[in-house]
C-alpha cells in the first residue's frame, strides 16, 4: 500500500477491479464488448489473465437484460460489475435499476442482497452530441437503495471501486470520461477507500466550493487562482452523492459562511439543489450570502464545438462567480481568469486538459 505510482483514473479503476476480482471469486464482469480490444476504454482490459475467461461475460446489445441478469446473479451471491459505455444506455435499464436493484433488499425484508456495481461513463467533447454526453446523476441519486459514486482522482477511484464491489448494495459508479485521463499517485495492490462522503481537498477560510467529478478539477484550478487574488477557498470533492453525507460541508460552511456548488450535470434539479437546501437548513445563521449553484444550462449539449463555449462550467466561471461574491476587484478577477486561459495554452474547447493532476 505504501508503494505509490503515477497512474490515471482509468487505469486506477482497472487496477482496483483486478485486485478485487482476484481476491473474490464471486466477482463477475458483464458488458457489451467485455473482452474486446477496447474493453470499456481499457478499464476492464486484461482481466482474463488474472481470473480466467469464465467470469468475463460478453453481453449482447441489450441493456435492460444486462442489468436484470446481473441483478439475478447478484441475488444468487455473485458480485457483478457491469459497465455502460455511456450513461445514456443505462436509460434503457431504469426499470431494473429502480425497481429490482434498488428495492430487492427492502422488499425482501433484508433477505436479498444486491452486491452489484453499475459503471456508467459520462461523455464530453469531440462532438459527442446530445445523446452521448449527458450527466444524469440526479436520476440515480433520487432512488433510495442505490449508492451513487462520482470519483474524480485515481487514488479515490481505485479504492472506491474496490469498496463498491465489496459493498452489499447496488452501487452506481458514474465515471466522467475526461476523469479517466487524470493523473495522480496511486498505491499499488489492494486497498479500500471508505464510501464516506466528501473529501476536503484544500482548506480555506473565505468560501466553500463543493463539486462533483470532473468539476472538482475545475474547482481546484479556480481555488488556486482565487488564492492569488486574495480569496482562500475550501474545496470539497463530493465523491459520494447517495447516501448524501454533508457533515463536512456543514462544518466548512459554518466556518466560511459562503457556498458555491459546481455540478457536472445540470444545474436545475442538480445535486447542488439538494446540497444547498440542506446547507441552508443546517447553517442558516452562518451564511453570509445566498449559496451559488453552477452547473450545465437548461438545454442539451450540442455537437459542434462552435456551440459549446459557455456550456460547461470551468475554472474561469467559478473564479468570476466567487470573485463577485467576495467583492474582489474586477481587474484582479480578470487577471486570474487570464492566467487560467493561458494555462490551457490555446487547447480547443472539445478536448480535456492534459495537465490535470491529482492532489495525491
Amino acid at each position: 500500500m505504501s508503494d505509490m505510482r503515477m497512474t490515471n483514473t482509468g487505469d486506477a479503476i482497472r487496477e482496483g477491479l483486478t485486485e478485487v476480482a482476484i481476491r473474490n471469486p464471486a466477482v463477475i464482469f458483464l458488458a457489451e464488448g467485455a473482452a474486446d480490444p477496447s474493453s470499456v476504454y481499457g478499464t476492464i482490459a486484461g482481466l482474463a489473465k488474472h481470473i480466467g475467461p469464465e467470469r468475463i461475460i460478453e453481453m449482447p446489445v441489450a441493456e435492460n437484460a444486462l442489468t436484470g441478469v446481473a441483478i439475478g446473479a447478484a441475488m444468487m451471491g455473485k458480485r457483478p460489475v457491469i459497465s455502460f459505455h455511456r450513461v445514456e444506455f443505462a436509460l434503457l435499464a431504469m426499470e431494473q435499476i429502480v425497481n429490482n436493484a434498488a428495492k430487492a433488499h427492502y422488499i425482501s425484508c433484508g433477505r436479498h442482497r444486491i452486491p452489484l456495481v453499475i459503471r456508467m461513463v459520462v461523455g464530453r467533447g469531440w462532438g459527442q452530441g446530445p445523446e452521448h454526453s449527458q450527466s444524469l446523476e440526479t436520476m440515480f441519486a433520487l432512488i433510495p437503495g442505490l449508492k451513487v459514486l462520482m470519483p474524480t482522482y485515481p487514488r479515490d477511484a481505485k479504492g472506491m471501486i474496490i469498496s463498491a464491489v465489496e459493498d452489499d448494495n447496488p452501487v452506481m459508479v458514474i465515471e466522467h470520461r475526461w476523469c479517466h485521463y487524470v493523473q495522480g499517485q496511486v498505491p499499488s495492490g489492494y486497498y479500500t477507500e471508505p464510501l464516506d462522503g466528501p473529501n476536503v481537498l484544500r482548506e480555506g477560510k473565505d468560501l466553500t466550493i463543493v463539486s462533483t467529478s470532473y468539476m472538482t478539477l475545475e474547482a481546484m484550478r479556480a481555488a488556486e487562482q482565487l488564492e492569488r487574488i486574495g480569496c482562500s477557498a475550501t474545496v470539497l470533492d463530493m465523491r459520494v452523492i447517495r447516501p448524501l453525507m454533508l457533515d463536512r460541508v456543514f462544518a466548512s460552511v459554518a466556518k466560511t459562511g459562503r457556498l458555491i456548488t459546481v455540478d457536472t450535470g445540470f444545474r436545475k434539479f442538480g445535486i447542488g439543489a439538494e446540497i444547498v437546501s440542506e446547507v441552508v437548513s443546517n447553517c442558516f445563521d452562518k451564511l453570509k450570502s445566498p449559496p451559488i449553484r453552477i452547473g450545465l444550462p437548461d438545454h442539451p449539449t450540442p455537437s459542434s464545438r462552435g456551440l459549446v463555449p459557455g456550456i460547461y462550467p470551468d475554472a474561469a466561471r467559478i473564479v468570476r462567480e466567487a470573485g463577485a461574491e467576495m467583492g474582489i476587484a474586477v481587474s484582479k478577477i480578470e487577471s486570474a481568469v487570464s492566467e487560467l486561459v493561458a494555462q490551457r495554452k490555446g487547447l480547443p474547447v472539445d478536448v480535456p486538459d492534459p495537465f490535470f493532476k491529482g492532489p495525491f
Partner: protein
Amino acid sequence: MSEKLISKQDAAVKLLREMLNIRLVEETMAARYAEQEIRCPVHLSVGQEAAAVGVCQALRVTDRVFSTHRCHAHYLAKGGDLKAMLAEIYGKAAGCTGGRGGSMHLTDLEKGMIASVPIVASAIPLAVGSALADKIDRTDRVSVTFFGDASIEEGVFHESANFASLNKLAVLFVCENNLYSVYTNLQDRQPSRPLTNVAMAHDIHASHTDGNDVEAVLKATLDAVERARSGKGPSFLQLDTYRWREHCGPNFDNDIGYRTVDEYEEWRAKDPIELTRRKLRALNLLSEADEKHMTDEVQREIDAAFEFAKAAPLPDPSQASQFVYA
C-alpha cells in the same frame, strides 16, 4: 400392489392435492376479501393451478422459481409457507416479506421461491441471471421464470431469451397463456402465429402443452428440466390455460364485456382439478372417501392459516425505514 404403482399413485394424488390446495386457498381468499381485512390487490390463479403444480412438481427444492404479480400458485406449488403467504397478504409482520411486498412479491428463499415481481416481464432477466450464476458455479440447478402471455410483448423477454440461448443457460421460460392481459385479448396484442415462434427467434427449444392437463405439464417440464440439467440450454414452455376470475380482485367479471360467458364456460369445463380428479377416480386411485378426507384436511389447514394471518399483528411503523441498505 407394486412399489412403483404406489409411488405413481402417490405422485398423481399429490398433483391433485397441490392443485386443490391452491384452489381452496384462493377461493377462501375470494370469499374473505369482502371483509376488507385483506387490503392489497390480489391476482388469483383460480383455473390455472395445473401450470404451477405441473411445473413445480418437476423441480427440486434447490431449483429456483421467479414469478409475477400472479404469484400465489407458484409460491404454493414451490412449497412456500402458507401462513407466511397469508400473513403477507393481510399485511402482517409474520408475512413472508414482513408486510413489505404484499401479494405481488411473494418470496420463500428456503423453498427456492426467489422473487415475484409485479412489473410485467421484469423477473425474466433475474431468472436468467440466476442461471448464469449456476453455470459459472457448474451446478445442475434449474431456474424457472413464470410469466403470462403479455410478457412476450415486452422487449426484455427477448433480450433475456437471446442471452440465455447464447450461453446455453438452464432456464425454463414458462408462458402461461391465459389469453388475456387485464381485459385485452391476445389477438388484440399480438399477430396470429404460434406463440412458440418467439422461441425460434432465439433458437430456444419450445413445447406447447395443454395447461389444464397437469400430467402433460409435468411431462413437458421434466423434458425441459432434463435438457437444462444436461447443458442443452433453455426451453420455452407454452401452457394454455384460463383465468376464471377477474384480473385483479376476488370477483367474476364475465359480465363487463371483454370476454363472453361462453368462452368462460368452455374453459370452466376443462377445470384442471376436475380433470385430474376424474382420472384418478376412473383409475380407482382415489375413493370418494379419500377425496373428502383430502379436501377436509386441506381446508382445515387453510382455515387455520387464515385465522393465523388475520390474528397476527401488523408490523410496527418504525420498521418501515429498515433494510434500505444492507
